[in-house]
């Protein structure tokens, strides 16, 4: 049996027609990971028992001729900052090296109920801070398309796992581009939903006003299926919402695509621009209207993000004192001085980038600097959101490149933090505005097209993305 080109749809059909069993699929992917992941490093942990147990359940359902749930027998991978009950959840950090999740994240519960088979937990930049997965405390992940190159980040393990066909889909998390940029680098599909569309319960927090969980898949259709399952209001995340979505008939002749000139300027690699322009032309040929627009605040999105995200991170990561979450070999405390010493020492277990962001965040929130940095950034954030609002009065969707460059080599940017931050140049504004955006592969080169929609317009951007698949 050839399991190389499976999709969610094909698995359902195959199980229904008894062409294969869930156990066979599960076994195939587990073996493939064991054989081939050594050179890629997509997985931090394989959850073999959990996977086999779920496969057995699905096969029983087939046997009993029960109706199969939408993800029955579909092998998937979960970014290691999302909790799976009874499984280690490290967030790529030494400080959580032995932490075992005591419950399921809401998205994981939903996937399990939908019949998905969880194969393992994927590698990431520590606490999702980074753009190359080199900041993992354990090992870097390599790009399956070119082992010399990074897979992007921070959801680099998830992107690599899908791209290498270790699974059918994976979950990632996106704070400033961490689903979209690795999707672009690994030539897969990655969706960052509208802020609030998917519950964050059980996602280890990085920057709470920006974090969103999103699906990473091989096809746009699969992306839609997974998104429909994980979305929705959750009582356990009070920022999650059930949006009212207007059902509007979609016609390509009515589609107005905005092209913001600021996203094609300095710092964008020529080959990236060329590929995106080719994709835009294809849409124009099938009847979409192309409108040049301006998002004048674009150049301020990155500095704005690098105040707000570290500020929120410094506060979220205050809880890691090394005493509660499974750090081993912490000495018995015999005095008050010991307590503080242990506290300060335990926090040395954070990696370089995480420390850097905690320091930066602490600084911009500290007395005397709060107004000059943090408050100012929050005001700029509103102006950035207004920029998009204005643009969406004229167009339905906005097209930009996902990443300013093609995948770079391992080690190329890791010693220059600011250079690494520039990887997020084209994705952070969307995050600050809380908008949904999808990255789809459009070329033989690993170049992703970012399709941005209005708040809660996931359906629309998925439809627009599908057009490309059908071209």
């Amino acid at each position, binding site marked *: 049996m050839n399991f190389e080109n499976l999709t969610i749809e094909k698995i359902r059909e195959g199980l229904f027609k008894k062409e294969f069993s869930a156990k066979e699929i599960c076994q195939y992917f587990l073996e493939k990971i064991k054989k081939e992941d050594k050179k890629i490093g997509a997985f931090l942990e394989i959850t073999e028992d959990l996977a086999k147990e779920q496969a057995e359940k699905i096969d029983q359902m087939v046997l009993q001729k029960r109706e199969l749930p939408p993800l029955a027998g579909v092998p998937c991978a979960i970014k290691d900052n999302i909790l799976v009950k*009874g499984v280690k959840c490290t967030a790529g950090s030494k400080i959580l090296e032995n932490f*075992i999740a*005591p*419950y399921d994240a809401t998205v994981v519960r939903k996937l399990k109920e939908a019949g998905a088979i969880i194969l393992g937990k994927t590698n990431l930049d520590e606490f999702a801070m980074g753009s190359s997965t080199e900041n993992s405390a354990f090992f870097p992940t390599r790009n399956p398309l070119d082992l010399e190159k990074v897979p992007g980040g921070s959801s680099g393990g998830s992107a690599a796992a899908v791209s290498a066909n270790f699974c059918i889909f994976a979950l990632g998390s996106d704070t400033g581009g961490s689903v979209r940029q690795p999707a672009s680098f690994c030539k897969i599909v990655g969706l960052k939903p509208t*802020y*609030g569309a998917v519950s964050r319960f059980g996602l280890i927090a990085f920057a709470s*006003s*920006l974090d969103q969980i999103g699906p990473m898949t091989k096809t746009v259709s699969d992306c839609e299926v997974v998104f429909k399952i994980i979305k929705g209001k*959750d*009582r*356990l995340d009070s920022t999650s919402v059930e949006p009212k979505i207007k059902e509007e008939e979609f016609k390509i002749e009515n589609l107005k695509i905005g092209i913001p000139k600021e996203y094609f300027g300095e710092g964008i690699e020529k080959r990236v621009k060329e590929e995106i322009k080719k994709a835009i032309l294809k849409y124009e040929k099938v009847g979409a209207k192309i409108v040049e627009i301006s998002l004048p*605040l674009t150049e*301020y999105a990155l*500095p*704005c993000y*690098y*105040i707000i995200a570290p500020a929120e991170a*410094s506060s979220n990561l*205050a809880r890691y004192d*090394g*005493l*509660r*979450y*499974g*750090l*081993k070999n*912490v000495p018995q405390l015999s*005095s*008050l001085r*010991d*307590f503080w010493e242990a506290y*300060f*020492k335990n*926090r*040395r277990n954070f990696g370089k980038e995480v*420390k*850097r962001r*905690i*320091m*930066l965040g*602490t*600084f911009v929130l*500290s007395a005397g600097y709060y107004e000059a*940095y943090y408050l*100012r*950034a*929050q*005001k*700029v*954030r*509103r*102006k950035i*959101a207004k920029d998009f609002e204005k643009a969406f009065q004229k167009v339905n969707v906005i097209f930009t490149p996902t990443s300013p460059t093609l995948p770079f080599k391992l080690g190329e940017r890791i010693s220059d*933090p*600011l250079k690494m*931050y520039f990887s997020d140049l084209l994705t952070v504004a969307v995050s*600050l505005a*809380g*908008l949904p955006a999808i990255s789809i592969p459009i070329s033989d080169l690993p170049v992703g097209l970012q399709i941005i929609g209005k*708040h809660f317009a996931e359906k629309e951007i998925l439809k627009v993305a599908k057009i490309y698949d059908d071209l």
Partner: protein
Amino acid sequence: MISKKQVKHIAKLAKISLKEKEIEKFQKELSKILDYIEKLKEVDIENVEPMSHSVLLENVMRTDEKISEFVFDKEKLTEQFSHKEDNFLKVKKIIQE
């Protein structure tokens, strides 16, 4: 450029102990990042309200009772403490009598 003293102060606020070499490194790196962030001063923010969330959020009220969706094993959580007594995290008393 921020000073070494400032770096030490931030580290103290963030409760992270740093080695001398790290202090020097952070001084350079943070200064470079802060220089870049200065760019925001070019934006006119007169009469702009700060934005803390991208979608309109409302306070969520609920009755003070157990949420049925959230079930977890307390022991599974507490057994991960570095030091514990019964079901409590054991640390040194930090308030002096």
